[in-house]
């Protein structure tokens, strides 16, 4: 049940306790064990699920990258056939974009957004769980193509008419269209949910200009998703109709237009780039101030530049099409608009550097990744300016120069941001720290690996190596740098293993010798550090009253006449204890996972046999029905140790949350 629904008068006067509830329409009650994960609606558990699933797909997509790099290590590589290579690079792109980077951001957004705004959950907890299962099942569905005739082979951009049945008669591209539609449902639902959460559920006093930058950037991202996903959805429907039902939207010989696909794809595809990078900018804007012990430099500029990037991101899509022959007027317009999107991005870089300037830098692994992002993203941004020039782009597009560019942005930007964030928020997730020493190894291997892999691609591209070629020849001059790039790719693989080793070792150490990291191990600034680690299920004992930006920091520190911080309280004293009782939380539900499970059946049915679609449809209808009529709470859903269940709406985290009852419960001493 949505938390904000709990405000309705009906909720305030609960219905009389039913003596008997119909089996499956009761709510699950498990709080531990595997069932607690399958049926959870807790935003923190959903966030962790996103994180784990995206790591799984990272391994899948990373393995595909290793296959690509092994094939290209030497001229005339024979590891993969051309047909298989085309599937592998296509699935690598789709996996990394839709099943790794986006859900990594979703993991952090889900976990942190309610905590950063002082809420107890997202606005629609069941929808949140549904988003995750949709994403997971969509991703598994996409990858199941490997076992059912081969993956998509049209590239992640999947240009028409190469994507038609004539040119790609296998089922790979059907899996692409339907899988992305399912994953698109996940992202759309999640975006609506998070937007409503941030708009409606901020703690009292958490005004727009007091929101943490990560929350701001994630919010902008959700708006990008809401406005761009419908476009790719339309495009995928057109593609599906062309492939499954013989329509001709993209068939030039019957009056269709292949460029229609390109425009639709990139109207989505370019905002998608910012969808993947803006949350990483947000993470960096949390890490750098914390580890510099200074507030973010120019908060209004940071927020405004993020919004500007999001807004301008919708006006530059055709820079992916400078070679497509759309005419010099369109080329001029998009070339100029693209150049100026560098301005707000540059502002961010300079503001981060200004934050660092004069600071007291603690070079933790998180900080290394954050400064790594600043350094690596700058390289990607600068190469981006060179292909904003349309004439130069006609030399660069579809070469490895572009591959270098977007990997510096996506790996050096998004992935660096997420890894930095993981080291930072790990105690909040799991109640223990990651090992810093192994973390440094992880960072340096990642940094060296990525520069070895993607740095040489600049040279390869400028010297004329095209993208998406399954092999090259002696005498084209591509041998050396390809070999270096392959060595780099395996270095990145090792760095990822080091990260997994770190997760395992740190967990074992914590099990053997538990050490409470405390609520605030980094001496950090935002609200999530004012609750215990790991975060208790109800997040906040009491919804905090926000007085200023970086509120939690200012509860710990005042400042002297020179503007230097002076400690006024220990974190442990101002943090919440996490021992509140009687907090009303949404109950788990069976239906999000069941509803999401129905969608791949429908998709299989459209590809193979409509019987499967009927089964899927039945599942969807039944679970929507179950979703609607299931009781709003589980029987006896009280918390352990609770004396008396009070059905007051304290769980909604909205402006009205600070009731008299809660103030009495306040645990600050």
């Amino acid at each position: 049940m949505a938390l904000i629904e709990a405000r309705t008068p009906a909720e305030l006067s609960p219905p009389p306790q039913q003596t008997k509830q119909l089996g499956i329409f009761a709510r699950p009650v498990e709080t531990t064990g595997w069932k607690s994960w399958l049926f959870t609606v807790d935003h923190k558990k959903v966030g962790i699920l996103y994180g784990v699933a995206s790591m799984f797909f990272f391994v899948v997509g990373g393995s595909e990258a290793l296959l690509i790099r092994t094939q290209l290590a030497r001229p005339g590589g024979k590891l993969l056939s051309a047909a298989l290579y085309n599937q592998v690079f296509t699935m690598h792109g789709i996996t990394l974009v839709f099943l790794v980077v986006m859900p990594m951001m979703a993991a952090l957004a889900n976990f942190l957004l309610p905590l950063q705004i002082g809420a107890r959950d997202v606005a629609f907890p069941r929808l949140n769980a549904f988003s995750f299962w949709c994403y997971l099942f969509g991703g598994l569905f996409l990858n199941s193509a490997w076992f059912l005739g081969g993956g998509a082979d049209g590239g992640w951009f999947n240009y028409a008419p190469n994507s038609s049945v004539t040119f790609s008669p296998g089922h790979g591209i059907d899996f692409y269209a339907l899988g992305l539609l399912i994953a698109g449902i996940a992202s759309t639902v999640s975006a609506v949910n998070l937007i409503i959460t941030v708009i409606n559920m901020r703690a009292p006093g958490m005004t727009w200009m007091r929101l943490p930058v990560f929350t701001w950037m994630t919010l902008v991202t959700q708006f990008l998703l809401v406005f761009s996903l419908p476009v790719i959805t339309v495009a995928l429907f057109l593609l599906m109709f062309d492939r499954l039902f013989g329509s001709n939207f993209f068939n030039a010989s019957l009056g269709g237009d292949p460029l229609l696909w390109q425009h639709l794809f990139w109207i989505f595809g370019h905002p998608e780039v910012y969808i993947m990078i803006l949350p990483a900018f947000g993470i960096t804007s949390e890490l750098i101030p914390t580890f510099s012990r200074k507030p973010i430099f120019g908060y209004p500029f940071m927020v405004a530049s993020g919004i500007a990037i999001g807004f301008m991101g919708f006006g530059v899509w055709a820079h992916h099409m400078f070679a497509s022959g759309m005419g010099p007027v369109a080329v001029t317009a998009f070339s100029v608009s693209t150049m100026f999107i560098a301005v707000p991005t540059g502002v961010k870089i300079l503001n981060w550097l200004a934050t660092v300037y004069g600071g007291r830098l603690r070079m933790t692994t998180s900080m290394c990744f954050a400064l790594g992002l600043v350094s690596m993203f700058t390289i990607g941004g600068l190469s981006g300016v060179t292909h904003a020039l349309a004439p130069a782009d006609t030399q660069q597009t579809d070469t490895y120069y572009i591959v270098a560019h977007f990997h510096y942005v996506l790996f050096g930007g998004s992935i660096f941001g997420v890894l930095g964030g993981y080291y930072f928020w790990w105690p909040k997730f799991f109640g223990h720290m990651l090992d810093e020493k192994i973390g440094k190894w992880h960072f340096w291997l990642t940094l060296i690996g990525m520069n070895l892999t993607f740095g040489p691609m600049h040279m390869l591209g400028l010297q004329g190596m095209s993208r998406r070629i399954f092999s090259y020849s002696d005498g084209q001059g591509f041998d050396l740098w390809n070999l270096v790039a392959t060595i780099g790719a395996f270095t990145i693989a090792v760095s990822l293993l080091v990260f997994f080793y770190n997760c395992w070792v740190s967990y074992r150490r914590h099990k053997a010798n538990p050490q409470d990291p405390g609520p605030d191990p980094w001496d950090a600034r935002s609200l999530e550090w004012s609750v215990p680690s790991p975060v208790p299920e109800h997040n906040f004992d009491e919804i905090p009253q926000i007085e200023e930006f970086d509120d939690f920091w200012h509860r710990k520190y005042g400042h002297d006449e020179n503007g230097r911080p002076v400690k006024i309280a220990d974190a442990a004293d101002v943090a919440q204890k996490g021992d509140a009782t009687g907090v009303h939380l949404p109950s788990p539900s069976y239906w999000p996972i069941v509803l999401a499970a129905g969608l791949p059946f429908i998709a299989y049915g459209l590809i193979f046999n409509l019987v499967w679609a009927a089964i899927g449809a039945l599942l969807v209808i039944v679970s929507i029905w179950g979703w609607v009529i299931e009781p709003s709470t589980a029987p006896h859903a009280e918390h352990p140790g609770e004396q008396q269940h009070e059905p007051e709406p304290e769980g909604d985290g909205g402006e009205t949350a600070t009731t008299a009852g809660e103030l009495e419960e306040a645990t600050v001493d």
Partner: protein
Amino acid sequence: MASTTPDRSHTRGYVIAGVLTALMVVGTLLLLRNITDVAGHPLNTLRPLGDQARKIDDLVVPVFAVAGIVFVLVEGGVIFLIARFRRRSDDADGEGDPVQIHGNSSLEWAWTAVPALILAVIAAFNVAAIWDLEGDAQNAEMNVEVVGQQWWWEFRYDTNEDGKPDVITANQLVIPADTTVGVNIRSNDVIHSFWIPTLNGKRDAVPGRVHKIALHADKPGIYEGQCTEYCGLSHGYMRMQVKALTKADYEKWLDNQLDGPVEPKADTPAAEGKAIFNTKCASCHQIDGYDTSGAPTASGEPDPEYGGADHPLVSGNAPNLTHLMSRDHFAGGMFPLYDSYDEGAARTSAMPSGDPSQGELGDWLRDPPGKKPMASDRARGMPNLNLSEDEIDKLVAYLTTLK
């Protein structure tokens, strides 16, 4: 602005930062020292050998320079900031905490405005270059039609301007040097991209559309190219070349192309090879003056719809072989037609002469999909015809006569 404890020396940090930055700059320059080498990198985008590529190069090189300066400033800045402001192991908690500065509006407006101004200047040159290149294409001295298909390029010349092509060749586009040639790019199936990096940027071949760019080679020579829009299975092996000839050589080449095919002498292996060609190859490969069954036609002219008329979006046809040996490569620019060239008859003469690569042609006929991935079961690419060794020898004998 802020300073930490005043009694501390930062010399060591500055030295480390300076050395690291210098290493980064020197290392990058060392790595880039051969970047414009064209001999070892025939597709190099940074060594223009024609007018259009040079205009692009002139636009982008100063931008690379500006980007290089920003790169050094930012990366050097990060290194400097870390060296200068990092907390050392002997620092005590809370000691020397920084002044809490929240921003500086004039500074921030400045670093918004200055990059915007720099970009505005670059944008002006950019827009001028876009329209300059467009003008080149519209003011071409002659035109050639380029047709992309899976996975090779066809070139059509209409020398008498009657709207019908008089010469159809494949994989090697021959143009006169020092002449602005307009290239009208079309596609027969999926999207391809025509790209000769040393002469001009790329332009997509999109079904249902004609896109025009200009090529202007400074000097006679061979300029390598590669299809750069992903076009399915054998995209990686879809290559082409531009051969620029002196104007006199170009006329010689054109005269030869306008002639009909060489007829093999009777009772030679080549004549037997022609008979095999007519039964096994002619349904896809055209020799001017013959129809798809190998019978002579009335006109003797090349047929632009040969073999592919029924499938406007699927390339059912194959390269025109009338003057096969006037080219250097076959099968989408992949394999050489000559092992060596005769003295004085360099690759850039009107007609290459020398030792034909019998072995390459023979290998190809033995198993085409084994040499280059193709979807021959779907009418795209050459199937394995299961020819006998005898048939292969005779076909090679015939094909190598097609000068």
